């Protein structure tokens, strides 16, 4: 349990250092993980762990891999020496600046530190200026365009900051926090390669700054870039990789990492939430729901990531649970994008699309790069039959992140709705390219090809084939494949797929017209191939159903018997009438 203790000590120092530099969210994150480390039960009274203890029993229900409870072995992490603090020269000014900073008077904070030297005050001064610029940028955005318009407002401090920081960087005067800020500025300026290098330096020298990792992650748009980074083997890297994999939609890898991390950070809400998000992407809604219920019990005022929970509730059509959640978050913090999104989801579920759009718009006003809100708003517009607005919303989502397959899919669906299947194909192709293992996308594409206007059956078959190969839950693909092959007169292939479909239906205990159709076809097919025994099996099964098929089956059976009576070698008599 030494590593736990190590982590705890490192994080404890890091929280202090980060909050001393006013890096609030990084410090918040570090503190959360600090508390998330599993305690040695011997040392602590039950009251300390009351919330956490109770949780694990439920959580374990879904824990597939028991190995994770044992601490990690075999990986030796580098230990980065905890940084020594600067001497307290000019400490008074620094304190004043920090107070100003706390009161969000960034320029004032920067001004106080204008004469101060030392890495720490340099950092805080630059950081304050950066934030002042950001604040001004946000204001300008609203002044110039209105919040939902695209606008071109820039942080006017970037140029001077870059100049100063690069000079400091050249002289080696930047500590890891300075490097983080420099990386941030470079990223904003669009100098991604240098930004990446600088950020890697920053996290290598001071790995506990989660904000730096996040910036770095935003610069890793492909797996190749991610793999090319040279990162020290610190345990923070695991967090980073897990998060980066999640972003690159390598869900299983990400899940493995998180579960691995749970060995140490057994009570980290953050990890729980991330696992829930990954599970959501894997469409394991039951698990997601359990995890979020748990999280809300432990941390009732949590708003982060709750939009994912609301999505699950939406999909499961839990009206009251969703309304309860919405009520809860609106009391906690009304002006959070997540809150608005949850309410939007609720109204959408209730079918009140105008109101829903209003809340999504509000969410976007609060964060205009809020990807899922754009997509969800697109869905609402589709419901409202406002096609151009829907297309516009989806397109905005795509422009923010070209890798958002949902928005591409939404675009495709919208155009398909307009009876433009060929045009829609372009978008489906995009989404399928990004998410090749999603059967829904393949099916949507196949339906486009199959549409009566296009009727490109061969292509449709190919798409359905892909869909059938990637775990098609609704079992549309097999049936369609069988049907299309039948249409094309390829009865062997059709029989193959009907049989497969039949097997599936049997396995899942489903009945219905598809079943009858499959049985009917198979009966006729095998009869035509003179494989009477198989055919008879299907015919007898058909006899269980009512309707014209039953009669057809009967006549088929009769016909076969007649045929067989023609063959003297066969014994017909033992067949039951």
């Amino acid at each position, binding site marked *: 349990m030494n590593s736990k203790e190590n982590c705890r000590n490192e994080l404890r120092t890091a929280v202090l250092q980060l909050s001393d530099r006013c890096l609030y969210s990084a410090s918040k994150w570090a503190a959360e993980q600090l508390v998330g480390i599993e305690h040695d039960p011997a040392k602590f009274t039950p009251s300390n762990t009351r919330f956490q203890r109770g949780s694990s029993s439920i959580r374990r229900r879904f824990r597939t891999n028991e190995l994770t409870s044992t601490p990690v072995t075999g990986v030796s992490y580098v230990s980065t020496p905890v940084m020594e603090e600067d001497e307290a020269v000019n400490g008074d000014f620094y304190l004043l600046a920090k107070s100003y900073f706390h009161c969000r008077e960034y*320029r004032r904070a920067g001004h106080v530190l204008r004469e101060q030297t030392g890495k720490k005050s340099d950092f805080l001064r630059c950081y304050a200026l950066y934030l002042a610029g950001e604040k*001004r940028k946000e*204001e*300008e955005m*609203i*002044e*110039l*365009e*209105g919040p*939902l*318009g*695209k*606008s*071109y407002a*820039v942080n*006017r401090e*970037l*140029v*001077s900051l870059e100049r100063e920081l690069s000079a400091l960087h050249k002289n080696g005067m930047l500590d890891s926090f300075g490097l983080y800020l420099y990386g941030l500025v470079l990223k904003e300026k669009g100098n991604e390669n240098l930004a990446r290098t600088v950020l890697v330096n920053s996290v290598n020298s001071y790995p506990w700054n989660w904000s730096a990792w996040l910036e770095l992650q935003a610069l890793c748009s492909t797996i190749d870039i991610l793999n090319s980074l040279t990162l020290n083997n610190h345990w923070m890297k695991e967090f980073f990789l897990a998060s980066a994999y999640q972003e690159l939609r390598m869900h299983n890898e990400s899940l493995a990492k998180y579960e691995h991390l749970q060995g140490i950070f057994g009570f980290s809400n953050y990890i729980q939430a991330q696992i829930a998000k990954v599970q959501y992407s894997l469409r394991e809604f039951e698990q997601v729901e359990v995890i979020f219920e748990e999280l809300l019990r432990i941390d009732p005022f949590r708003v982060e990531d709750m939009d994912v929970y609301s999505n699950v509730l939406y999909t499961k059509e839990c009206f009251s649970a969703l309304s309860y959640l919405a009520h809860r978050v609106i009391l906690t913090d009304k002006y959070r994008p997540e809150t608005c999104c949850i309410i939007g989801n609720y109204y959408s579920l209730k079918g009140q699309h105008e109101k829903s759009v209003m809340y999504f718009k509000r969410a976007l006003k609060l964060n205009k790069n809020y990807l899922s809100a754009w997509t969800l708003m697109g869905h609402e517009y589709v419901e409202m039959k*406002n*096609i*151009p*607005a829907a*297309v*516009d*919303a*989806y*397109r*905005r989502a795509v*422009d923010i992140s070209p890798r958002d397959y949902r928005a591409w899919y939404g*675009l495709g669906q919208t*155009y398909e709705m*307009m*009876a*433009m*299947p*060929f*045009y829609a194909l*372009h*978008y489906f192709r995009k989404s399928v390219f990004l998410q090749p293992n999603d059967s829904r996308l393949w099916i949507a594409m196949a339906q486009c090809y199959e549409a009566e*206007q*296009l009727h490109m059956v061969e292509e449709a078959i190919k798409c359905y084939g892909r869909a059938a190969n990637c775990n098609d839950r609704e079992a549309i693909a097999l049936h369609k494949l069988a049907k299309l092959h039948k249409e094309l007169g390829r009865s062997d292939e059709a029989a193959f797929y009907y049989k497969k479909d039949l097997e599936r239906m049997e396995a899942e205990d489903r009945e219905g017209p598809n079943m009858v159709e499959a049985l009917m076809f198979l009966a006729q097919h095998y009869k035509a191939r003179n494989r009477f025994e198989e055919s008879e099996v299907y015919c007898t099964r058909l006899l269980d159903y009512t309707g014209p098929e039953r009669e057809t089956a009967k006549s088929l059976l009769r016909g076969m018997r007649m045929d067989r009576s023609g063959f003297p070698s066969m014994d017909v008599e033992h067949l039951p009438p």
Partner: protein
Amino acid sequence: MAGILRAPSAFAVTPHKVSTCILIQIYAPPAQISVPFPFSSVTQHNRLGLYLLALTKSCDDIFEPKLAELLNQLREIGGLMDQWLTNHLTNRLSALQSPDDLFNFFSEMRGILGGLDSGVVEDDQIILDPNSNLGLFLRRCILAFNLLSFEGVCHLLTNIGIYCNECFSTCPTYELQHLDDPSNEVEVLSEYENMDLENYISEKITEEIEAGITSKGVSFHLYLPKALSTLVEDIEASTNPKLEHSNKVGEHSLYTPSSSNALRNVDPRGGVFLRSNWQMQGYFMERAEAIEKHGSSFSSSAFELILRQLQKLAPELDRVHFLRYLNSLYHDDYFAALENLHCYFDYSAGTEGFDFLSPTPGTNSFGRYEIALLCLGMMHFHFGHPKQALEVFTEAVRVSQQQSNDSCLAYTLAAICNLLSEIGISSTTGMLGSSYSPMISVGTSLSVQQQLFVLLKGSLKRAESLKLKQLVAANHLAVAKFDLTHVQRPLISFGPKASMKLKTCPINVCKELRSCSRLVSAFSSEGSGLTMEGAFCTAWLKNLQKPIGSLVLSEDHGSGNNANPSQFCTQPSSIHGSLLQLVGSSYLLRATAWEMYGSAPLAQVHALVYATCFADTSSSLDATLVHVKLIQHLAIFKGYKEAFAALKIAEEKFLCISKSRILILKLQLLHERALHRGHLKLAQQVCDQLGVLASSITGVDMDLKTEASLRHARTFLAAKQFSQATAVAHSLFCMCYKFNLQVENASVLLLLAEIHMKSGNAVLGLPYALASLSFCQSFNLDLLKASATLILAELLLSLGTTHRKGALTLIHGVFPMILGHGGLELCARAYIAEAKCHLSDPSFSVSENSEVVLDPLKQASEDLQALEYHELAAEAFYLMAFVFDKLGHLEEREEAAAQFKKHIMVLENPQAVEDPLFNL
């Protein structure tokens, strides 16, 4: 409609506009003197007025000029008073130090405007009419300022500070007004800005003015029909006249955006302001036209840079995406084009700009996505994906019908016609099969050609009823093209048939072509003035840079700046460029038509007319086409030397432009010459190169494919590999038959006849020659018919001397045609054949009528020497030697024999002459 989430960018007050306001105040001060203070004469006064007008309208750039540029221009304008003007301007600008100064400034501006109702106007008084252009501009500025929130005023003030600072830091001669460092200023300003931002008024009224102006007829997508027309005129190139030296050298450099624009750094601190919406649209129009006109010579990356910048600065301008699409389209970047096209239509929903649409507000909520389909189809067509294009077009037809968008339907039909006529499709079943359109559904049982005919007629009718004049013209051209190459057959295959002569109808072609050109007169009455105005102003401003006094002198300097006067000539034309292109392509089509009908002079004349009259407006594609025609003419009538000289010039001129067409021409010429000289290996090589230029997709680049295999067969023929030659020609014939290329069939048949003749099977050749003749007759291909007749005569001659009389009659029958319109080779062959006829006649006495055979032979040998056609030349000299021998002219006989020997030697050792031109 799509912009539900976005406020359209309105008319914003910028520092540049403030400067313009100051200048307007100078131009029209409230005082009441006829020539106000600083001006010394009325002309000077007017000049400033003109300048201001141009300043508010020009659309050559996306950014407003910086103060330094403005001051420079003022110096040009001001003449004697430039010092006063610039000083006044800078002083006024730098006097604007606080928000209150700005408020005062704009209320002062209001004083310049004459009241709408002030009845008493004195004679000398200068009053700025509130409804004049400048008055309107001023009013909009004042209005925009009044609508500004306090934050907005603060922004303006900061920007004015930056605007002045930039200038003063670059031109130190001016006394530096003390202005704070902009960063300090931002700090100062920020205290103003902690206030409620919610009630930021949208500049609705300004928008309305803007809308009022733009809706008058800035038709952004006017080039859509043009795109159609340029596609229409790509008729296959064959043979034609002399080269024409126009002054278009270096033109491509003229149209690439100046690098200063491209590289202008968008420093967020620097005062970079976009021009007004109206000017931007003008700029877009102008750029779009330039891209279409210059194709790939248009510098792609520089323009892309500007567009990216623009997209960053003004993300609400969706048209940027369209321009990016056009740019990538003409640079053959399929993926970027596709991406940008989709992006554009996603954002704009097709509702932007298409003013040929009937504005029915009810349907607007669905967007105009059928236009997206139309554009996508044309894109696929452009990239040579006929199948996809056809799919998209059928979808476009269906959606247009659903949305009852008639004009889009008309355009789509025209586009389909274009596709069907351009691309070889053996059958449309499974493509256009189902009942999408009542017109197409008729065609299920018809051949492609018949379907095309029905579509063409329907499309023309539709365009006429919708009064889409350009489309009507484009359709006329398409019909003409169809008539040119297709025999009309009855559409119904049963019932009593009207007796129809199976012939193309040249009169119809002429009619259609004429009705296309009539368009110009129809348009000149309408006038698309507004768009021209911006261009005119731009040109005017550009001319400022040149001092007026030295204009004459600089012209005397000669070639150095001849681009400018020519530009000056073109600018005031009131006819839209796309229209001129359309008319121009009718001339091109005329040239092609005459080429096919076999009148070399007329074809040449029309090509020349095109080259001289439409050179300015023609797209680079057409320009190359006309050059190709003229060079081919040279090659046929003057020999290779001149043709290659001309080709060199053309190559230089179209350096990077649509290289392929010039390249094809070069290969063609090289191949022909190689064949004539007997460089068979080289010929084969060139021929293969020609073949790989064609797209591998069936049905695409049919011209090139037929051309390549025709040449392939010819190469085999020259190598005396008759069976291979026959095989190639046969498969070519099958292909032509499959794709209904009747005109090509005629020449393939002729080639087959020739192959059989050369292989010694004259009897086998006869039916081919006759078939070719009948093809030529029904398509009115007179020149080809003449050469078919010649082949027929040669065939007859080789059957034996008994047929020589018939052969001679045949030759004499076509002599007028051949001598009038045929090229060197054809004439020479006719002469030789005639001589042979005479010589084979036992009753013909050489000594009596020596000139009857000698004259044509001499003529033939001269022609053939120009062509370097060794084989035939040798034959001519052989015959000459033979005749001289009979006449007893020994000296001349020896000479002819020596010539014969020389040609044979060269033919047998082709490597002796190395070829400097073959450096591909």
